């Protein structure tokens, strides 16, 4: 073994490289607050590996993105876990970037001669945020779609930004090219840029070494110097392990990342960015009209410029914290501002009922969409998942088979009754008062026997009683409860005064030339009409509607009946 190693070493110089890396002196000794850079490198490597694994399932197109993510999340072994780790990993990177920056600021490590490394570090931090922004859109779910609309919208709102927005999102609106572009940036451009800058960052770090506490004298620093291995290495590995452990725990506790319903440009989703962008989101609320550029560009840009200029802003003679109070106070104020804005955004949402309701609905839609996606999603796109819903199938059957004659809320044919609010009290009132209008039986040949009852023939209070009686006959107390006293009054009118019972029977099964009203309007009754409206207790000879018995399956007829029934339930 040692001979093999000697052979490899003599040809590659790996031994020297290792000795140099491991033996690097840490002036003043190993410290826990030096771990952040190593933890970030570890997190980045982990994100790369996880990203590659996700890419083996993910398909970046408007038609496939959501469906492939749902497949990975809900069907592939370990998919939810790896995607969850990748998602929480980005949060972890942002947290550790901030901790790293705080440590660098407190230690004064941005000062000469380390200015370039400070700038590279800021650029790396920016790249981490760019990763988060581009990755958020990729699942093509409601959350990513709407939140990213805001981000690209900001870009388009600055002077000259319209073209940039169009190039980045691949057109004037979101579509296939938005995904391929965000994907290419997320998985090729950003990792290459981050990897390259990371090498430069580490090279410069090695060149200048750690920035030891200013309180130690040169002599003390030399005296306490330890080699990187094993002292600092141990702390670094410990920190990586703790970070990895927290990530795994978080992923398991949250069952990975959210996946909302497929992106729908016609919906109104309560869009929120990822938590670490909430302060920017909150900032947008304060500047109105032409001033909005202050919140979108000027303040964030000003803060970035300030951080870039920090090595020059800081004119203090020494690195000691005591001599840099002013600079530390400025950075501290900025951090406090970020924390405060984030907190305000969170509190406002917690108190906003509309937001809470929107969230609840979004979650319900998400779980329904993902349940339906288990059957496979049609290639038309994520939203096509809704077509797996039997209720949706019924609407398609309706538009193909029924809408030629029946309208729904005015849309559709006018040869048969409008079913928009079928059998609601208002519908029944209309059917009695104006049976010959297009919304009822006006367009139906053969349905000429039913007379219109105007107010003289049937005063409003009597009409209400009769309608209430019809509701009782329908006998669906759980969806349409009735007023018993009023219904009883209606029953009396029906039996003793009005002529309805001459044609309409009310005991199940009996025919009288017009539909029997027992159970009229229930799902079962509607299904019977669809099967064969010419039944002896339905429309008999006057039936215009074709029989669908045998043309549609039982399941289709039942779904259709449930759909029509549902139209009258709102």
């Amino acid at each position, binding site marked *: 073994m040692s001979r093999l190693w000697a052979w490899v070493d003599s040809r590659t110089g790996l031994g020297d490289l290792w000795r140099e890396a491991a033996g690097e002196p840490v002036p003043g000794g190993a410290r826990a607050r030096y771990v952040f850079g190593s933890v970030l490198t570890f997190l980045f490597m982990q994100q790369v590996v996880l990203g590659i694994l996700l890419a083996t399932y993910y398909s970046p197109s408007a*038609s496939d993105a959501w469906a492939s993510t749902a497949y990975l999340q809900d069907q592939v072994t370990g998919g939810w876990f790896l995607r969850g780790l990748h998602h929480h990993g980005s949060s972890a990177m942002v947290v550790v970037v901030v901790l790293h920056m705080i440590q660098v600021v407190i230690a004064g490590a941005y000062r000469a001669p380390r200015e370039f490394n400070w700038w590279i570090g800021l650029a790396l931090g920016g790249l981490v945020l760019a990763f988060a922004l581009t990755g958020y859109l990729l699942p093509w779910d409601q959350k990513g779609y709407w939140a990213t609309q805001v981000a690209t919208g900001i870009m*388009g709102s600055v002077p000259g930004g319209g073209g940039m927005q*169009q190039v980045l999102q691949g057109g*004037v*609106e979101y579509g296939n090219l938005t995904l391929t572009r965000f994907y290419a940036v997320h998985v090729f451009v950003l990792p290459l840029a981050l990897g390259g800058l990371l090498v430069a960052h580490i090279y410069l770090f090695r060149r200048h070494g750690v920035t030891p506490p200013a309180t130690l004298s040169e002599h003390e620093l030399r005296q306490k110097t330890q080699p990187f291995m094993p002292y600092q290495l141990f702390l670094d590995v410990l920190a990586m392990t703790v970070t990895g452990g927290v990530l795994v725990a978080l992923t398991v506790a949250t069952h990975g990342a959210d996946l909302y319903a497929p992106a729908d*440009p016609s919906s109104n989703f309560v869009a929120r960015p990822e938590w670490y962008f909430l302060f920017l989101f909150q900032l947008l609320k304060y500047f109105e009209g032409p001033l909005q550029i202050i919140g979108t560009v000027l303040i964030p840009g000003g803060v970035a410029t300030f951080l870039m200029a920090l090595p020059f802003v800081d004119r203090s003679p020494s690195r000691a914290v005591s001599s840099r109070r002013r600079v530390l106070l400025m950075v501290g104020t900025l951090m406090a501002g970020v924390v405060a804005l984030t907190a305000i955004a969170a509190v406002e949402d917690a108190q906003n009922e509309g937001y809470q309701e929107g969230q609840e609905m979004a979650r319900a839609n998400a779980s329904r969409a993902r349940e339906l996606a288990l059957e496979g999603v049609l290639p038309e796109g994520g939203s096509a998942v809704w077509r797996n819903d039997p209720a949706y199938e019924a609407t398609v059957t309706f538009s193909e088979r029924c809408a030629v004659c029946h309208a729904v809320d005015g849309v559709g044919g006018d040869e048969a009754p409008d079913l928009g609010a079928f059998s609601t009290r208002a519908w029944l009132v209309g059917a009695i008062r104006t049976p010959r209008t297009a919304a009822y039986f006006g367009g139906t040949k053969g349905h000429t026997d039913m007379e219109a009852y105007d107010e003289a023939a049937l005063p409003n209070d009597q009409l209400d009683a009769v309608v209430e009686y019809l509701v009782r006959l329908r006998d669906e107390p759980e969806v349409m409860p009735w007023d018993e006293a009023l219904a009883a009054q209606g029953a009396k009118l029906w039996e003793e005064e009005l002529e309805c019972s001459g044609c309409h029977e009310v005991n199940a099964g009996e025919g009288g030339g017009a539909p029997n009203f027992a159970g009229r309007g229930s799902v079962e009754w509607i299904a019977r009409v669809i099967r064969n409206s010419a039944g002896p207790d339905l429309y008999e000879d006057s039936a215009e509607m074709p029989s669908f018995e045998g043309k549609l399956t039982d399941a289709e007829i039942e779904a259709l009946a449930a759909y029509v029934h549902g139209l009258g339930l709102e």
Partner: protein
Amino acid sequence: MGAGLAGTVLAPATGLVLFPLHEDVTSGGEEFVMVGDRAQFGVVPRRVEIFADRKDAWNRVTRVRIGAAFVAVKGGTLSAFSTVCPHLGCGIDFDEESSCFKCPCHRSSFDLEGAVTEGPAPRGLDALEIEDRDGSIAVMYQRFRQGVAQKELLG
């Protein structure tokens, strides 16, 4: 020579990246779309979804939702507003209680005429062209640049 070599790749690469600037990548819905019967609409705006065939780069899909609009009839006049917030593109809601349009993202609100009453929106809601065709209402769905004071058609 090196510059020439780089140029042979860079020039087409630039063209490829900037392609969406001068070509219509997505299209569809540039015509009037039926949204319902006149009788369905009243003073209170009603949200309708706009269905159209859409071409998205290499895909063509038929009858998909490309957006939504609020349609109202007031004193015989028809009006339609896009549900896209002119601020930064979130979907607007209509709040019946206060009888105004509200953006769930950054607190912009708009009155029934679409004018901004509160919040960061730089202009009022974007009115869409609307037509009454013998009692059937048709809307032309369009998108406009967000975050700017002028209503500027995209595409």
